[in-house]
C-alpha cells in the first residue's frame, strides 16, 4: 500500500515534470504516458508500522512519452517528499537529457568564498609567455608550490 501511494506521488511528479519538459510543444499528455517497468525502491525501512511512507530515496518507473522516456527519483524525509529529481529524460532524437546538470546562475560572492591559498595550480585562458609572468600561476611556480 505504501509503495502504491509513493508510486502515485512519483507519477504525479513525473507528470508535472513532463508537462514542464514539453512546455512549448502544446501537446496534451492524455494518451502519451505508459509505464514500461516496475518500480524499484532503494529506501531504508526503519519501521513497519509507520502510517506514512518510509524515509528514503525511491526511483520511479521509467515512463514513456511520445517524446521520450522519463524517470524520476523522489526523496522522502519525515513522511513527505523533500526532493524530486529527474534521473533520465530523452528527447525526440534519442539523446540523453540530464536537466539536472544545467549550468545555473551563481553569485560571485558564492564562488569568492571558495578561494583557497592552498591551490597547486591555476587554470585560465591560454597564457602567452608575457601574460604568464603576471599570472597567479607564475607566483605559485616561483614559490615552488
Amino acid at each position, binding site marked *: 500500500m505504501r509503495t502504491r501511494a509513493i508510486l502515485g506521488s512519483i507519477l504525479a511528479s513525473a507528470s508535472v515534470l513532463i508537462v514542464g519538459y514539453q512546455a512549448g510543444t502544446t501537446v496534451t499528455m492524455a494518451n502519451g504516458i505508459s509505464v514500461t517497468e516496475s518500480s524499484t525502491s532503494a529506501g531504508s525501512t526503519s519501521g513497519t508500522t509507520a502510517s506514512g511512507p518510509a524515509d528514503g530515496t525511491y526511483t520511479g518507473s521509467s515512463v514513456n512519452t511520445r517524446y521520450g522516456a522519463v524517470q524520476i527519483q523522489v526523496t522522502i524525509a519525515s513522511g513527505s517528499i523533500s526532493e524530486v529529481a529527474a534521473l533520465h529524460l530523452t528527447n525526440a532524437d534519442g539523446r540523453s537529457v540530464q536537466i539536472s546538470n*544545467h549550468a*545555473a546562475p551563481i553569485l560571485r560572492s558564492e564562488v569568492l568564498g571558495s*578561494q583557497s591559498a592552498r591551490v*597547486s595550480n591555476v587554470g585560465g585562458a591560454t597564457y602567452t*609567455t608575457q601574460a604568464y609572468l603576471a*599570472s*597567479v600561476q607564475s607566483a605559485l611556480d616561483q614559490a615552488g608550490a
Partner: protein
Amino acid sequence: MRHTLETMGTVASIELPAGWSRELVAVGAIFDEIEGRFSLYRPDSELSRIASGQLVLAGASGELLASYSRALEWRGTTLGVFSPHRPDGVIDLNGIVKAEAIERAGAHLQAVGCPSWSVNVGGDILVSPTGGAQLVGIADPADSSALLCSIRLGGSRLALATSGSAQRGDHIWRGGSTEPTHFVQVSVAAAHIVAADVLATTIVAGGPEALDDVTTRWDVDVITVDRSGALRASPGLRRALVADIAA
C-alpha cells in the same frame, strides 16, 4: 618539485614528486615534438608545410592525421561549433594539440609509475588519477593575478580546461563572425583533458545554446563568465568549490 618549461607559445608548469625530476626530459621531448609538428608559427612545421601547399594532406604523418581526424570527430559531435579549420580553410589544430600534448605527458607519467603529478600548459590542467584530489584555482578573466574560485580535481574530474578571450583576444573562430563572444571565459572540468578543452572552446564559440547542449550531452562541470561579469555554474562545479577561505 615544481618545474617550468617554455613551449607551444606558452609556459608549462609540471609538478613531480621528489626524485622524479628525470621525467621532465621526456615530457619536454613530447612538447617539442608536438610543437615541431603542429605549430603554425613555425614555417617548417609539418602543419605549416601543409598550409602552404608544400605537403599534401595524404602525405602527412600518421600522428598529424590522427589529430586531424580526432578534431573532425569533435566537429561532428559538437555539430560544427568546434572546428579544426580557420575561416580561410587552413587546417588549424591549435584547438586540440595542446590538450593532446598534456594528455600524452600525463600518459607518460602514469606509464612510468609516477605516483602523483600535475601538468599545466598555459592554464589547462591535468592531475594524476593517483595521489588524491588536488586543489586548483581558476583565474579571474578580469585579472589574471587573482582567482575567481578554487575547485577540487580528482576522481572523474582530472582535467580542467579554460577557454576565453581574456588573454589573447577573440582567438576562437566562429564561422567568420566578428561579433564578440557571449562568454569571456569558460572552464570545463572533465575526466579527460581533450574533452575538457574542446568543450570549453565549443561553449565560448557557441554561447549559451552550446553551454546547455554541452552540459546536457557530456558528463562535465562548467563555470562561465559572461561579458557583464555574471557567472553560471553546473551543480557539480558548485559542489567542487573549495570551502576553505584562505587563512
